[in-house]
């Protein structure tokens, strides 16, 4: 009987103490990698002779047209 009580006490103490331990619960963030089809860059077309500089020049020109202060006849 004494033996059984001791065994129960040991199991209980171990069980209670196990509740005090804490495992890390933060999942480490791992950035994913794009898994889809590759895309063709916008500048790779006949319109710009496949040159990025040509495309960027045209985009920059359009960009600046959005300002009335620089448009011909603007404020």
């Amino acid at each position, binding site marked *: 009987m004494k033996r059984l009580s001791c065994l129960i006490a040991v199991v209980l103490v171990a069980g209670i103490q196990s509740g005090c331990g804490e495992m890390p619960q933060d999942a480490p963030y791992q950035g*994913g990698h794009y898994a*889809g089809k590759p*895309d063709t860059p*916008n500048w790779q077309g006949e*319109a710009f002779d496949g040159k990025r500089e040509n495309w960027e020049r045209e985009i920059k020109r359009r*960009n*600046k047209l*959005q300002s009335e*202060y*620089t448009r011909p006849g603007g404020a």
Partner: protein
Amino acid sequence: MARMKFLCDAERCIECNGCVTACKNEHEVPWGINRRRVVTINDGQEGAEKSMSVACMHCSDAPCMAVCPVDCFYKTDDGVVLHDKDLCIGCGYCFYACPFGAPQFPASNASAPDGRSTDWFGARGKMDKCTFCAGGPEENGSEEEFAKYGRNRLSEGKLPVCAEMCSTKALLGGDGDVLADIYRERVTVRGKGSEVWGWGTAYGKPERQSDASPAGKKTEQAS
């Protein structure tokens, strides 16, 4: 290398919804999907009503990319956030992650421009969002690209149609640095707006003379 961004000037937006209409028309977006929308606050309150055009902001650190379980998002060299619809499973995580409500899911019985049903996956369908008029991972300018993502204006050397069609030029689209220059110039001319918190960080004095400054006119830059 350009960093493509949108900028909406709430002082200029007149809630005409021209940007929304232009987007819908250009990409033949089906019913139930709003790649762009105009949000109005303090509606009807004189002097306090403000409107702003909202779509995907092509975030530098996009939360949609972080939460996508199938990694269908990618960012182009120009900072445009796009996705592969063939990979999308329509889980909706990106919708919950996006602070702008940009990801859209087709309603039941929606259809692509060529008549095909877009109910590709369950009730939610494949996610659809603003592409900055840059199409998607299909051949540039192809019919397939148009059917899935809409027109690819960037590959034609054009900017997003919503910004180019904006009648008051409230909505600007393009290289973030150029947009910041244009906006800084406006606020300087306006004489108010640069006192708000965070102005210096966002639009502080440029290191170089603005490309958007009036020719021959030196203006005082906002501090």
